C-alpha cells in the first residue's frame, strides 16, 4: 500500500469521509489532522462524520460474552493499582502485566519481525528474559543460575544461543519467573529502604523498579510496533514515576556524559497527564535561592521516549527559555538513563 501525502488542502479535504472511517494511511491521517487544526469549519464536519461512522457501528450491537466482564476486571486490577502506597512496585507489576499480554499474542509468524532495538521479536523476548533474570540474580532468585554474566548484551547472547532450538515459551517462562521473583522480593516492606547493585551503580530499590517499568514499556511498544500495532503510553501515574526518575537522576547523568554545567540550574516542565515540574542542578553549587538559568518545556511522553532512546533528542518538540546550550546539555544527558 502506498503512503502518499496529499498535495493541497482541497485534496486533503476530500479525504474527510475516509478519515472518519479509518480508511486512510498514516501520512494522510496526519495531513487531515493538520488541516482540521487550522480549519474549524472542517473540524465540525469531521465531528459529524465520525459520529455518523460510530453510529454505523451501532447497527451491530451484540451482547458481549459472559466471561468478558470478569476477565476485564482481573486484567484491570493487574494493570493499574489504584491509590497505591508503593508506586514504584505498582509501576513495575502493571508494566510487566501489559508486556506479558503483548508477549502472549506473539505467534511464530511474528518471530522474525525486526524491532527498534535491533533484535527480531523472538530474540527481543529472550533479551527480556536475560534482563529480567539479571534483576532476579541480584536478589539471589535467578531462575537460570548457570548464566551469571552481569553484562546484559553478553547475557542476552548466551541465552539466545542456549534457547536457539527451544520453543519461545522457555524464554517466556524465564521472564515470568524472574518477574515474579522480583515482585515477591519487592512486596516485602523491608526492601523499601534498600539499594541494589544494578549495572554500574548502587541504586535505591524504587529506582530499579521504575527503571524496569520504563524498560517494560519501551520493549512492550517495540513488540507492538513489530507486530503492526500502535504504540501505547503508560498510565499517568507510571509516566510520572518514569519522568521523575529521569529528572532526579539527571545530575548523575550529566556527570556521566560529561555535560555538567557548574553553578547552573535548569527547570524542566513536562506537560500532559503524568507530567510535572522539576528543578535540576546541573553541576556544582547552585545556591539555595538561585533562579533557573533555563526552562525547558516538553510533552511528558515525548521526554520519556527520548530518555528511552525511542525518540531522537533533536526531534523533541520543546520550548526553551533562557540559555539554549543548557537545554542541549540536558537532552544530551537524558538518554544516559536508558543505560541504567
Amino acid at each position, binding site marked *: *500500500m502506498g503512503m502518499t501525502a496529499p498535495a493541497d488542502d482541497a485534496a486533503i479535504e*476530500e*479525504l*474527510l*469521509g*475516509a*478519515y*472518519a*472511517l*479509518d*480508511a486512510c*494511511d498514516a501520512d494522510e*491521517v*496526519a495531513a*487531515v*489532522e493538520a488541516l*482540521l*487544526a487550522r480549519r474549524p469549519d472542517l*473540524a*465540525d464536519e*469531521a*465531528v459529524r*462524520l*465520525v*459520529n*455518523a*461512522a*460510530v*453510529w*454505523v*457501528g*451501532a*447497527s*451491530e*450491537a*451484540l*451482547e*458481549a*460474552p*459472559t*466471561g*468478558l*466482564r470478569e*476477565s*476485564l*476486571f482481573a*486484567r*484491570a*486490577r493487574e*494493570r*493499574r493499582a*489504584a*491509590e497505591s502506597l508503593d508506586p514504584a512496585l505498582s509501576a513495575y507489576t502493571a508494566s510487566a502485566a501489559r508486556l506479558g499480554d503483548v508477549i502472549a*499474542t506473539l*505467534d511464530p509468524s*511474528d518471530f522474525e519481525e525486526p524491532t527498534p532495538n535491533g533484535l527480531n521479536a523472538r530474540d527481543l523476548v529472550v533479551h527480556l528474559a536475560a534482563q529480567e533474570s539479571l534483576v532476579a540474580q541480584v536478589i539471589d532468585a535467578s531462575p537460570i543460575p548457570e548464566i551469571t554474566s552481569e553484562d546484559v548484551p553478553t547475557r542476552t547472547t548466551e541465552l539466545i544461543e542456549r534457547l536457539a532450538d527451544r520453543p519461545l515459551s522457555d524464554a517466556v517462562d524465564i521472564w515470568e519467573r524472574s518477574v515474579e521473583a522480583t515482585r515477591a522480593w519487592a512486596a516485602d516492606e523491608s526492601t523499601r529502604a534498600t539499594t541494589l547493585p544494578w549495572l554500574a551503580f548502587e541504586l535505591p530499590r524504587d529506582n530499579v523498579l521504575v527503571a524496569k517499568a520504563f524498560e517494560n514499556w519501551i520493549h512492550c511498544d517495540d513488540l507492538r510496533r513489530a*507486530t503492526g*500495532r500502535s504504540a501505547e*503510553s503508560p498510565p499517568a501515574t507510571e509516566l510520572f514515576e518514569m519522568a521523575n526518575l529521569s529528572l532526579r537522576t539527571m545530575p548523575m547523568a550529566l556527570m556521566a556524559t560529561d555535560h555538567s554545567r557548574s553553578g547552573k540550574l535548569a527547570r524542566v516542565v513536562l506537560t500532559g*497527564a503524568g507530567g510535572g515540574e522539576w528543578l535540576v542542578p546541573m553541576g556544582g553549587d547552585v545556591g539555595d535561592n538561585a533562579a533557573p538559568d533555563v526552562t525547558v518545556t516538553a510533552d511528558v511522553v515525548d521526554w520519556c521516549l527520548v530518555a528511552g532512546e525511542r525518540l531522537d533528542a533533536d526531534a523533541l518538540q520543546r520550548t526553551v527559555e533562557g540559555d539554549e546550550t543548557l537545554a542541549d546539555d540536558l537532552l544530551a544527558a537524558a538518554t544516559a538513563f536508558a543505560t541504567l
Partner: protein
Amino acid sequence: MGSVTAAVTGERATSSDWEHLVRARLVGGEEAALGEIYDQFSSFVFGLAQRVIGDPRAAEDVSQEVFLHIWEHPEAFEPTRGSLRTWLGTLAHRRAVDYVRREEARRRRQQRDADRRSPYIPDVDEMATAMVQAEKVRNALDVLPTEQRRCIHLAYFEGKTYREVAEVLGIPEGTAKSRLRLGLRRIAEALEQEGLEQWA
C-alpha cells in the same frame, strides 16, 4: 488514543454530567466506574469489534483492550470534545481494523485454534435498547444509494482503505473518497431525523 478523536475537537460536541463524573471516578481508580461504562457500552463495543473482525475470540480481546485503555488512560477522554460512546466506538473500530490489517499481513501464520467459547446470554434490557437503536441505524443506512453503502461497508466493516475500496469496486480513488464522504453525510442527516444525532 487514535488519531480520530484527537482531531475531533469541535466546540459543538456533547457531554454530560455523568461523563464528567465517571471520568473523574476512573482517574481516582474506582473500579465501579469501569463497571458502569462496561455495562452501558459492552454490547456496542463487542458487536462492532465482532462485525469488523468476524472472530468472537479476537473481538473479545479487542473489546477488553478498549475498556482497559480507558481504565488506564481516563484522562485521554475529554467529555468536552465528544461523547464517551463516540470515543469508545472510534477506539474499538480503530483497534479492530488494526487487527484485521495485521492478520491480513500474516497470511502465512498458522491456523488459529477454532474452538469457541460458551454461547452468549443477552441481557434483555440492554439488548432491547441496543436493538431499537440498531434498527434506526439500519433504516438510516437504507437511505443510501447502493454504491455509497457498498463503499462504506467495505471501509468500515472490512477495514479496507479507500484505495482498496476503489480497487475492489473498480472505480477511481477520487470516486471512492467522495462516495465515502457523501455517504457519511447522508447517514448523519438521516440519523438526525431519527433523533440519533447525539449519544447522550
